[in-house]
């Protein structure tokens, strides 16, 4: 500990800091005044985020760079530790499929309806006598084998495809999706979603410069705290979408190529998803009030 403290104090005093600053200033091509304080702050105070929840002894936390959207070059301003049970679960593709199909189908109500032979108007009377006319025998003109007749086994009325997967399966789906995004280098963690301008061009250029992908899903904590610049920029762009953390879902994560989470939203997700692993079975549904937890 003391050795590290001494090393840190050496790093403050020594010229290597200025050498690194110069190299970074050359790389960025920004005016020296604005780059130095920002870079100095990043070098001396990296944003190191530790996981609040207990990590099992046999597992190590996964890590990710903390980036910033304030400048093109600010790609590594800190290091965040992520809980392995949320960001390093087994890659259960079957769970992803289940949850994505559930999301697509549970809202579906198909309104298709056809008339049966009883509902089509007419057809109560036997068209011709049973025997003697030489024609085939028929009982009504609206039977399914007749033209204009009813449909035998067609769709009957609005049908609902509603079903609910167990809560823990849906939570596991989110954990698996986050794992897959991280392990395929499509997850980026950002300290906050503050942009220098509300210009959508800036956001597209940033994503292109950092090789993010063609579609990006930005996740902030709540609607009220979203900065105006991001809201304005994303409202004018089709492939950049901004959602609160509560709206994160497997289908959107698979639809967008890149996922950008803020540090507060990572904490929120870890809270909510890890609680599911160690909770009691409910005595009454969770949507009714409990006095233990919100």
């Amino acid at each position, binding site marked *: 500990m003391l050795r590290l403290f001494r090393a840190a104090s050496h*790093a403050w005093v*020594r010229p290597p800091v200025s050498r690194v600053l110069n190299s970074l200033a050359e790389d960025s091509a*920004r005016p020296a005044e604005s780059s130095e304080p920002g870079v100095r702050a990043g070098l001396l105070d990296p944003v190191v985020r530790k996981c609040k929840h207990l990590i099992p002894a046999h597992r190590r936390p996964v*890590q990710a*760079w903390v980036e910033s959207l304030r400048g093109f*070059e600010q790609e590594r301003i800190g*290091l965040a530790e992520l809980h392995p049970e949320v960001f390093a679960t087994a890659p259960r593709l079957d769970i992803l499929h289940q949850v994505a199909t559930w999301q697509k189908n549970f809202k579906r109500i198909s309104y298709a309806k056809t008339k049966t032979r009883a509902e089509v108007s007419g057809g109560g009377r036997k068209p011709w006598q049973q025997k003697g006319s030489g024609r085939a025998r028929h009982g009504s003109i609206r039977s399914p084998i007749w033209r204009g007749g009813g449909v035998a086994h067609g769709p009957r009325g609005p049908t609902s495809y509603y079903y609910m997967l167990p809560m823990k399966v849906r939570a596991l789906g989110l954990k698996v999706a986050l794992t897959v995004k*991280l392990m395929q280098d499509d997850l980026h963690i950002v300290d906050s979603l503050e942009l220098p301008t509300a210009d959508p061009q800036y956001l597209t250029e940033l994503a292109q410069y950092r090789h993010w992908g*063609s579609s990006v899903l930005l996740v902030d904590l709540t609607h009220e705290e979203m900065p105006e610049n991001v809201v304005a920029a994303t409202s004018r762009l089709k492939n950049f979408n901004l959602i609160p953390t509560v709206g994160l879902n497997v289908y959107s994560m698979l639809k967008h190529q890149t996922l950008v989470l803020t540090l507060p939203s990572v904490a929120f997700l870890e809270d909510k998803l890890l609680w599911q692993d160690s909770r009691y079975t409910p005595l009454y549904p969770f949507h009714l009030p409990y006095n233990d937890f919100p």
Partner: protein
Amino acid sequence: MAALCVCRYAGRSWLWNVPLATRRDFWSRSRKEKEPVVAEAVEEVKREPVLVCPPLRSRAYTPPDDLQSRLESCINEVLGSFPPSNWQDISLDDGHVKFRLLAHLANDLGHAVPNSRLHQMCRVRDVLDFYSVPVQDRSKFDELTASNLPPNLKISWGY
């Protein structure tokens, strides 16, 4: 047509009452108004050069020949002391040390450790192994997407 109109109005008395100097001012007023506007536009453009996108970089990386010496100098700067003989076994458990070392190497060599492999970098030896592997841009499609395309041309490469 314009010349005819001018000849018609030249007969009017109100034009001859106005002195010549002010008539020149009257006709040249539009020119004077444009100059300050041009100056303001130039100043506004100069206020925001910061948001120009830097040139796109390719993801190709070839390890330099002096990789080990560069790594040793990085450790020297980050830890502040000369690296010991077993510098490859230095563990990177501390977040600050790990961040400083990896960020310094990334800025130096132009190639950063991706998020998926950060948790595998436990010791300096792992970092050395990572940086000694060259990375190539996979296909011509990736190269094309990295270059400056016109905005209405999109390349999608679905596996």
